[in-house]
């Protein structure tokens, strides 16, 4: 009897542990909403606004634009180098090379972002300046952010898309090569289309992680208070995550009281917008992965 009771107690405790993750998410989102709902309602009712001065104007459009610009640019760069690497590893290279590169990539995919940040600020920014001259200022600009973000997400893209490519059954390759196609033709016309949804998941996940990345971008993007709405990648800018960081850092070093509260609310509102976008991307990926596994099982 005593045993039965203690088993029940432990089961309940374990249930509480499992429910804690739900509690944490609700706490986080609830607190964000509680702190940041006034500016969000304001943005929804009166438009997102194009001006941001940190005192009474909290427009979001410049930040949304620059976040999308930085995110899409960096993701394209990461895909442009990462996908061919994944194809090479999955289709062309021998097992020795793959067994060396894949684990080292996985190790590096968690490289602390602060470390990538000082590399960006002290190496990549001067290289950008060397390339483009004074047009790039000190090199703290969008293109520097693109380069460092794509290096950071590269291991991630390679790892996930290589998994997706390798998940394509070998019989497909054998059939294609049996019909006289070369390895490259097989990769391009048989394996890639088959792994499409997995690669799309890799793209979206890397986009989500790029949008959420703060430190490395913060240290090299220039932190302009209101980012210019322009396609020139040599100008300094500010994405949503770094806008949050800069403003909070400014507050922690002292700010006037009246300004503090409104600014804090706007910052939380911006965090809410960012979290919504990233959450949606993650949900789309979850649906993609689910559909893929269902398709596999039916086939």
């Amino acid at each position, binding site marked *: 009897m005593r045993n039965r009771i203690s088993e029940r107690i432990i089961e309940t405790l374990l249930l509480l542990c499992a429910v804690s993750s739900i509690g944490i998410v609700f706490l986080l989102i609830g607190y964000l909403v509680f702190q940041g709902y006034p500016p969000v309602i304001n943005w929804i009712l009166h438009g997102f606004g194009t001006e941001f001065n940190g005192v009474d104007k909290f427009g979001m459009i410049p930040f949304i634009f620059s976040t999308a610009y930085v995110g899409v640019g960096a993701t394209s760069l990461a895909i442009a180098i990462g996908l061919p690497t994944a194809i090479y590893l999955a289709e*062309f290279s021998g097992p020795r090379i793959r067994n060396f590169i894949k684990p080292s990539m996985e190790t590096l995919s968690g490289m602390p972002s602060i470390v990538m940040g000082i590399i960006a600020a002290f190496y990549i920014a001067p290289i950008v300046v060397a390339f483009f001259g004074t047009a790039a200022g000190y090199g703290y600009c969008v293109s520097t952010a693109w380069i460092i973000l794509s290096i950071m997400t590269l291991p991630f893209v390679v790892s996930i898309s290589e998994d997706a490519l390798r998940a394509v059954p070998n019989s497909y390759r054998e059939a294609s090569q049996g019909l006289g196609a070369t390895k490259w033709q097989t990769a391009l016309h048989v394996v890639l289309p088959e792994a499409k949804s997995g690669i799309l998941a890799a793209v979206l996940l890397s986009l989500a992680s790029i949008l959420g990345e703060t430190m490395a971008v913060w240290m090299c993007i220039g932190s302009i208070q209101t980012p210019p709405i322009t396609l020139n990648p040599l100008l300094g800018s500010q994405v949503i995550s770094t806008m949050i960081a800069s403003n909070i850092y400014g507050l922690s070093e002292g700010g006037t009281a009246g300004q503090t509260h409104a600014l804090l609310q706007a910052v939380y509102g911006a965090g809410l917008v960012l979290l919504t976008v990233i959450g949606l991307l993650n949900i789309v990926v979850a649906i993609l992965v689910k559909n893929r596994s269902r398709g596999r099982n039916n086939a």
Partner: protein
Amino acid sequence: MKVCSYIKNHKTERIIAGFAVFAGAGLLTSYGLLLVINTVTSLVSGTSMLSALPFTNTIADFFLAAFYFLASAILFLAGFSLVEAYYGGAVLAGIFGVCLLAASILGTVNSPLGFTAAILCIIGTSLGLLEQRKSPATKTLASVVIEKMAKNSLRILALIAVTSLIFVIAVIVYRGSSYISWSFLTNGLPLGGFQEVDLILEGSKSGVFGIGPALLGSLLVCGTCELICIPLGLGSAIFLAEYAPESAFTRVIHFFVELLSGVPSIILGIFGYTFFTFEFGWSQRSLLGGAICLVFMTLPWNIRVAEEAIKAVSEDFRAASYALGASKLQTIRRVVLESATPGIMTGMLLGFGAAFGEAAVAIFAAGDPQAPFPSTTNIWMFLTGYQMPTLPAWIYGAFRSLDNKTAFWTQEQNVAFAAALVLVAIFLAVTITALLVRNHLNKKLTAT
């Protein structure tokens, strides 16, 4: 003779199309060569051959030359496949032509040169496309060429990817190692913080200031985080894997775990910055606040990895244990957990590594790197009443104090690299241990 017969075997239009692109590529190569010669002569003699350029611009010239060589190599390939009447070559040359045109108009490449090369490319492309429309491609040779081209360019891109990652590690080790010493690891900052130290002078003596309190603080914050995280994560994983049947409820929990793992660290940072002060009246940033925010980050990791490890334990073990009369709890504790330990440890270590390097949370939720290490005997005050310096925040503080000196290679930057080297060394040690444990486990599983 070989060249003559080669030309005879191909149609004139194709030859013209291909050679137009060859000419463009040749132009780019010659300009690249000129740049290299200029760089070398100016490095050797101190004066530039073409114009009086300062040193940074010679580095720029070097990069630019590499860029021109790469471009012309691609154009040579495109020209060759045009001669071999392969459609992809025409597309490649066309794209390149348009890019060159845009670059020459924007002034990124030498504009008359880029303009000429672009026109040549576009002529070649259009001729190639016209020719393509008239006659079907000769399949065999073209596909062999493309195969080689594809394989080698893929190899080059893979090399670029690997090089960029090796570059990161090499830079940190090379720049950081000169400053590492025992006193750098143990000393703290003076009261005034980074402003009071001359990073070059006192750094080179390497002993006047260091990362000691920050390193200790980081270990404390991450240790506290793991202390909270392990029971919570392990409990959830056991519940999900052993008790809960696959149902809507477990799917909801899995969904929330996934959602939590997607929360960007800056959101956790601002949460930690305000929540504990406003709601509990703790110090603005504190050890426990930082640790709790890090728990939010590492919990999904721990749950996922531990759950997989528990599910991987063979059903036979459980059946055997039940057959011997053990209760469910005894089975879990004695049989399942013991077999799943390596997997659970992997999750723990990976979580610790990620938490150790997490800068946004450390800066906004744990504390200022220039704050003194809290000295109090009251444990609760120690946990919640004082700012706790951490290693990532220390690196950021050093960066901040160097911020307006953006030179290419100054000695004071090495201080930041030295702290980064310590961070990376600990991170890599933890992660590699975790991966070794995982591989060991995998081998054992496949062996049985």
